[in-house]
């Protein structure tokens, strides 16, 4: 199914809670209200005409100027061989969204990664811990304003500039 048809079906079913469809880009995407994301995804997975069996990818984008963190869901259907991209905008100060774990189990690890690197909290997640960084790491590195902590566990994370080293 073409992305435009998917969008039309969604718009009809969830009018007001999905918006901002963009079909003239490489990978057509649409925006979904964070509160409605789980419901929309369940429909996308279960509807026999859509059948998005897999959550290919879940990641986020940080837009400090617009004060938002944007979650990006790449969905794919093996049955119908079509794909769609969903985006959900969250406030940058306190980004919270409901977990997709009950729709796709793969979301468990992907959401942990987004939590780890962006600080997005997934409500209802079964095991929301850091996954790539140590538990006691400070900050979320993929945010644009991230400042690396100076030392971790007594080990410096800084490196003296090469020139200074040579002059010494």
């Amino acid at each position, binding site marked *: 199914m073409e992305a435009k048809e998917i969008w039309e079906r969604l718009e009809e079913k969830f009018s007001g809670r999905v918006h901002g469809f963009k079909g003239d*880009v*490489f*990978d057509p995407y649409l925006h979904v209200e964070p509160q409605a994301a789980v419901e929309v995804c369940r429909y996308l997975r279960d509807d026999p005409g859509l059948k998005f*069996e*897999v*959550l*290919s*990818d879940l*990641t986020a*984008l940080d837009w400090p100027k617009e004060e938002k963190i944007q979650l*990006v869901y*790449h969905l794919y259907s*093996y049955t119908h*061989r079509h794909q769609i*991209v969903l985006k959900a905008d969250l406030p940058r100060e306190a980004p919270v969204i409901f977990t997709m774990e009950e729709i*796709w*189990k*793969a979301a*468990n*690890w*992907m959401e942990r*990664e987004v939590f780890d*690197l962006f600080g997005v909290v997934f409500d209802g997640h079964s095991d929301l811990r*850091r*996954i*790539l*960084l*140590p538990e006691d790491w400070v900050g979320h*590195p*993929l945010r644009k304003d991230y400042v690396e902590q100076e030392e971790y566990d007594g080990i410096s994370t800084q490196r003296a500039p090469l020139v200074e080293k040579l002059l010494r």
Partner: protein
Amino acid sequence: MSAMNEATAGEGAAFQTEDMIINVGPQHPSTHGVLRFVVRTDGEVIRSALPDVGYLHRSIEKIGEKVTWHGFVPYTDRADYLAAMFANQGFCMAAEKLGGIEVPRRAEFCRVIACELNRIASHLISVGTFGQDIGAITPFLHALRERETINNLMEEICGARLTYNYIRIGGVGYDITQETCGRIGAFLDHFELIVDEYNRLLSYNKIFVERLVQVAPISLEDAFQYNIVGPNLRACGLRWDIRRDIPYSLYPELDFDVPVGTGEKGILGDCYDRYMVRILEMQESCKILRQSLRMMPKGPAIAKVPRKFKPPAGEAYIRIESARGDMGFYVVSDGSEYAYRVRFRTGSFTAMGLVEKLSRGIMVADLIALIASLDVDAPEIDR
């Protein structure tokens, strides 16, 4: 149990067992890199194995935001050092998609040849270490011997043996010469027979087969739920290969089969199927290589790309079939010299998410077989 407890406890209580926590890794040779599992066992039976990843996290995605588009290509090698060519290709394809760059036909052939050679090398490691993990050292040495030849060929093609930096935005770094093509052909003549040797040595070895059949089967439903990709997905019986089903590069012009698991020795989707799919895939790669060597036209090996490459603002998602399956590259540009966001989606990461579920109720020794069969690669998990 002390005598006093024994006296007070009931008859049945004397046979009660206690769960034991065992730490596997992070420096265990069978974990293929730096991987750690916290295993809760009841005797020999695993109650659960919790994977603990992140030991090899090098923040490649953050680096992608700090260096130029061209400058990031060498970093992509490090995402998966057993199959570096695919990350090269994926990132470059994503950049080309954004920038609207046409890749010369000869360069596409160079890419296909380099990638398929790399696929064979990666599968050789997978198959070889599989035997080693189960306790057979000899097949590993046989596999590495062949891989050595591929490494030599790669060195000839691009000057590096592991981290290639061969595929560039717009084409490839160096053309493949006629002499190298000849040597690749000679290697194929030799290697196609060697696959048979592996089958006699390992694939149909009774002990090896017994260790793998019916161990940790993955159902197709689980594969979808957990987003299992690549050879692991095909082992579940789904004939799905990005090269064939979402075609990219020159793969639509090339003729090859997509091997799937059949459950020939045990049940569909067990460790043996996952092993066998990789053996068969190596033969398919040989087919692709032969065709590419024959069809390669003359021409330039790289398109003209400005040194200050600034793709227009926008985003692109690319899927390629790496040795570990569907590798996704999501790049966002804001029109500047640096990428706004680079994201790698890798097959090993999602496969590790399934380990906890698969490990329930299997034996401790089978956990090693399971990890080997998934062919997870620690650097690719952690990036």
